[in-house]
């Protein structure tokens, strides 16, 4: 089982909020800056790797029950976005790696993608 805590080491990431979620399991992941695509492809208990740092990322995560968001290429979201994440109980990590490299590292570590479309 891979947990959010394991991702910190794999990605050399730091935790911006949601410490209490670190032992939750990560089953699949999705990397995208396009929330429209995230909405079409994500499954349960997913994590999202993105370079987009606006509040819509959190709203999209809320709809999909995404419990962990990783901001790539050293991006740190504005304070109000982090506040929203805290309110929603979403764990937020930040890594210096690009989205491409972060996804590669996680895939290599055994986290599968969310390739099947959601829905009926």
């Amino acid at each position: 089982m891979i947990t959010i805590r394991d991702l910190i080491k794999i990605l050399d990431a730091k935790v911006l909020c949601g410490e209490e979620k670190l032992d939750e399991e990560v089953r699949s992941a999705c990397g995208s800056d396009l929330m429209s695509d995230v909405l079409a492809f994500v499954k349960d208990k997913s994590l999202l790797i993105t370079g987009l740092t606006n509040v819509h990322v959190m709203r999209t995560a809320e709809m999909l029950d995404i419990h962990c968001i990783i901001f790539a290429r050293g991006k740190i979201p504005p304070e109000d976005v982090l506040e929203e994440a805290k309110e929603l109980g979403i764990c937020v990590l930040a890594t210096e790696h690009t989205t491409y490299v972060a996804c590669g590292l996680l895939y290599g570590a055994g986290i599968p993608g969310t390739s099947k479309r959601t829905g009926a």
Partner: protein
Amino acid sequence: MADYIIRDSYPVQTAAYESAGDASARIKRKLKQLGIDSAILRRIAVASYEAELNLIIHSHGGELIMEMTPKSIVLISKDVGPGIADISQALKEGYSTASEEARDLGFGAGMGLPNMKRNADSFDITSEVGVGTTIQMGFQIA
């Protein structure tokens, strides 16, 4: 006679990017409290969010309505224009007329309507240019 047990309506303003998702979040939280299964709830939330975003990005304003009966949840998106001239084109994946502003926020992939259709158990769209668009989506819960 109305056969629903709950009927909530949420107004959605055009270009209200800041509050995008508020209506869908309220619907999701309410249905969660009512004990709707989480997998069904996620489908409802995604469809609702896509409809809400379309109202904000493409319409002149409208409302999102959630009706609950003992067996189903019905989501209705209703707006006051501009309407869709070619519905079958709008339903194609990748077709989008979203503004630069919407794209910058991470939307405008032309995935919303197909995604609503995929997530809902029933999907019905009617539209008239100059009048408005109505979308009705049904979800079985029992």
